[in-house]
């Protein structure tokens, strides 16, 4: 029999033992929460109207770039508002210091990002983007940004998250810029 190891303690597991255990693995795991309400909402045609509320109300002449940038600014504003309402923890002085510094860092970074995005909004307002998937890329980055900000608030002592947030901001701006600069070059 093909033994995996010659360890002296206990009996070594053979590959056939492993294969046998694998065949006995269950296929009946259940999620911790009820997934049906989310599925039901997504497959219900009435909710498609709700999903398209934002885009349905955009005037037809507004380029997608402006819509996405506006969405980006809204996200930033939401983050800043949330930060203003976070209760201060007084019981743990060390954590409070970290928390305070991290919140300040997030505020500063988001304000700077918002300012740069607004400048781009003005610069590119009349130019549609040429690339097809840049909105999707931007959407992915929005999600990443939210994840990193949540992580920053949960682990305020981890300074690496600041670099990560900066990195995301740079990438968001770069995507908007690149997708429009090409057209500037071609004019």
């Amino acid at each position, binding site marked *: 029999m093909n033994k*995996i190891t010659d360890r002296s303690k206990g009996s070594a597991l053979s590959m056939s033992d492993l294969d046998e255990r*694998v065949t006995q693995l*269950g*296929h*009946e795991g*259940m999620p*911790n929460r009820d997934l049906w309400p989310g599925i039901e909402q997504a*497959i219900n045609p009435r909710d498609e109207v709700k999903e398209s509320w934002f885009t349905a109300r955009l005037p037809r002449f507004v380029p997608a770039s402006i819509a996405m940038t506006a969405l980006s600014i809204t996200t930033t504003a939401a983050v800043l508002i949330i930060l203003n309402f976070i209760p201060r923890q007084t019981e743990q002085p060390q954590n409070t210091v970290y928390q305070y510094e991290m919140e300040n860092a997030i505020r500063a970074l988001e304000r700077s990002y918002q300012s740069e995005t607004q400048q781009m909004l003005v610069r590119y307002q009349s130019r549609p983007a040429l690339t097809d998937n840049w909105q999707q890329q931007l959407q*992915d980055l929005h999600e990443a940004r939210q994840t990193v900000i949540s992580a920053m608030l949960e682990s305020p002592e981890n300074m690496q998250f600041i670099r990560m947030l900066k990195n995301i901001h740079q990438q968001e701006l770069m995507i908007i810029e690149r997708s429009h600069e090409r057209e500037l070059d071609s004019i």
Partner: protein
Amino acid sequence: MISEALYREEAALILACQQGDQRAFKVLYDKYLARTYSLVRRLAADEGEAEEITQEVFIRLWRKIGDFNGESQFSTWLHRLASTVALNHIRKRKSWWRRLVSDFVTTDGEYSDSVATSSVVTNTAAHASGQPVEARELEDLDSLICKLPEQARLVFVLFAVEGYRHGEIAKLLGIALGSSKAQYFRARKLLAEGLNEQNN
């Protein structure tokens, strides 16, 4: 082998779903939830993410069920859909995360070549809890599978647990046939080592 009666019942359910009957779809969902979630959880190696992916699988199922033509068993078809959705999700997660934090990730986002990690310690606590040995060992094995390096885990789950062929896995994951086999043997070795380490 499914019975004739069950087949008829399932065929009726699928037909009703294809005609837009959401109550029939709920029955189908209840029937396949556990099987689908188990597959997705092992592929994603994260319960929260597995829940999201499972939702996505059933939303896609609702939209695509009209494409099911009965040439294969429904369970096989759904299984393939679930694997594809899960792998796409994992790929997408990896791509944006890599793009953003490439300078923060040092090892290709994978674990090192050892699976004897905290899950083993956690599960070792069950040794003293009086659980049946068989069940406990299978729980340990499941935990170890989730701790495997990503590529090895995906190949192992698809080949050993779900019965895919290496050719199919290679195609699904976009890797060479030889790589699929190599990852499978790597996974097996790591699992056996992990279980042995646990026993000692």
